[in-house]
């Protein structure tokens, strides 16, 4: 069995004239909680929908748990999916949704699902259309989990939730990860969500993957360099500048280097996850920046 949760090679998806995802090559190992982060419209939903088998790729290849997505019923049973707005049938009650799951999934864990709904305080006879956003997300997650999947794909599950509901949802998710051998890919446009629960990061901007890797390794490999404005002409050697910015008094660089960083004239600081993500998100913009034309090599 492949040790990869998701493996893509040159994956791309085009809607009519627009590429929603381009040239995406990823190897996500199993056993991680993966944060897929990027601005709205970056292609996060497209990537997750492709992985769930809801979309077919335009180009490239994609394997989920070593098989092509939604290839057969067995593969569908191994992947749980929670869609962006927690798609539920509005006129079906909470307990009807559990029945739906029980009738449509061979490995359905009815007992756990019922216990979880009781813990969440969801009224079984309430229609899904009358649930709050947080309750909808929780019910969706409960259905996806009761499938006992090996991989859980969560498309912006907390985007529409208030901070408290968001915390509860992520808390529930983490308690489940602790109890089961399940890999999770979670998309969000907020770094704070990712920071709280994820140990693996993928930054997706303008339908392209900017960076992917374990968060610890990424943080170790990136540094923030603070220099004076006059340091402008000294380009740092054997490092990749991810982002550069200039204030009135100083110059800031976020660089990636695999070895130790020794830069005379620069103050070297570690980066936070937010700095890292923002550096990669801003990367596209930096290229058009006048600064780039002034000689900053990228």
């Amino acid at each position, binding site marked *: 069995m492949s040790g990869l949760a998701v493996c893509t090679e040159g994956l791309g998806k085009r809607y009519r004239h627009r590429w929603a995802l381009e040239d995406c090559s990823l190897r996500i190992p199993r056993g991680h909680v993966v944060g897929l982060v990027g601005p709205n419209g970056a292609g996060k939903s497209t990537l997750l929908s492709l992985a769930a088998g809801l979309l077919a790729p335009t180009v490239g290849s994609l394997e989920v748990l070593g098989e092509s997505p939604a290839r057969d019923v067995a593969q569908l049973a191994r*992947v749980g999916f929670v*869609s962006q707005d927690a798609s539920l049938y509005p006129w079906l009650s909470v307990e009807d949704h559990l029945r739906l799951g029980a009738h449509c999934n061979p490995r359905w864990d009815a007992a756990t699902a019922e216990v979880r709904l009781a813990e969440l305080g969801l009224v079984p006879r309430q229609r899904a259309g009358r649930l709050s956003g947080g309750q909808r997300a929780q019910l969706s997650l409960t259905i996806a989990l009761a499938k006992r999947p090996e991989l859980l794909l969560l498309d912006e599950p907390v985007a529409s939730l208030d901070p408290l509901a968001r915390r509860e949802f992520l808390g529930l998710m983490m308690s489940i990860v602790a109890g089961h051998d399940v890999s999770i890919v979670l998309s969000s446009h907020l770094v704070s969500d990712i920071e709280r629960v994820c140990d693996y990061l993928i930054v997706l901007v303008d339908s392209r993957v900017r960076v992917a890797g374990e968060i610890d390794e990424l943080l170790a490999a990136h540094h923030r360099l603070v220099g004076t404005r006059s340091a402008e002409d000294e380009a740092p050697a054997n490092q990749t500048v991810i982002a550069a910015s200039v204030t009135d008094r100083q110059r800031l660089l976020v660089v990636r280097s695999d070895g130790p960083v020794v830069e005379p004239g620069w103050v070297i600081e570690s980066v936070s996850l937010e700095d890292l993500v923002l550096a990669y998100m801003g990367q596209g913009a930096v290229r058009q920046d006048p600064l780039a034309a002034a000689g900053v090599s990228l």
Partner: protein
Amino acid sequence: MTWLAWRQLRTGAAVAALGVVGLLVVLAVTGPHLHDLYDTVVAPCAAHGDCATVTAHFQGLDAALRHLSSAVLLMAPLLFGLFLGAPLVARELEAGTYRLAWTQSVSRTRWIATRLCLVALVSAILVALLTTAITWWLRPFDLVTAGRWFSFDQRDVVPVAYVVFAVALGALLGAVARRTLVAMAGTIAGYAVARYLVAAFVRPYLFGPRRASLPELFQVTATGSSAQVGPPQPNDWVVSNQIVTGAGRVVGQSGGIGPNGDLGFFDVSRHGTAVFVGVGRCPNRIPITSGAGHSQDSAVTRAALQRCVDSFHLHQVVAYQPPSRYWPLQWSEAAIFVALAVALGAACVWVVRRRLP
């Protein structure tokens, strides 16, 4: 999966069943009286004479309910296609619920096939109930009017085939258009076109119509002219009725001269030469009594015109379907629509599998 398919259909099916049962109750209450009246008064009247009054009175009974049940049977298949067929896939795509349905451990093929079959089956059962009840209820009227062919598409088995077709059409259009309203509009148009094409171009010629050649009794009268036409038997379905000259030239449709079945006219010149409009030049001269262009007021003139008519040896060629073909045609047309439904259903499965979302 059957559970989900049934759960999604349940409400719609219940509403439809309620309507059907309501109409069935009304028919069950009023029907026995009509049948009784027909058996005891209308049918035996031939022995006593004066059938016209009795029949006319009988045909006036329950007019509202008769029109209603005919309309119901005409519209029911389309309504099922619109409200159960069109939203089948389109609604899921619009509401985004396909993302829940298609990520359970059920293949899309099974999902769409189960739902399509269940909706088609329930619709077919309800329409079969309706058709059986209404056919029974209208039977006394059908016997009086002897117009079995006129209500061919509102009786017996064809409505059941129509509804299966309408549901499959609605589902396919919904999957292609991805919008319920667009699918509904398309279903109305597609259903109407398919029904028209089959009724106009397939049903009459599916079994080669029988042909009969009848002498045309074209009488020149004081007020103009009149033709006596008619099918070989009152219960025959006349597919076409042409007037043909002795030379084999078709000069009229629908039992008269000209494409619209008008009666014949004469164009008589001042010199007595005449043209039988639409047929040909009269071989004999027409004596003119008053000097006017169109003079038919004397017996002599009429006789001359009749001689002109007779010279063309006009006769009717009637193509018709005899009553014995009623049931074979019912089953054949039903088979055609069921076959179309199967093809549309297969296309719908393919679209859901391969082309969506």
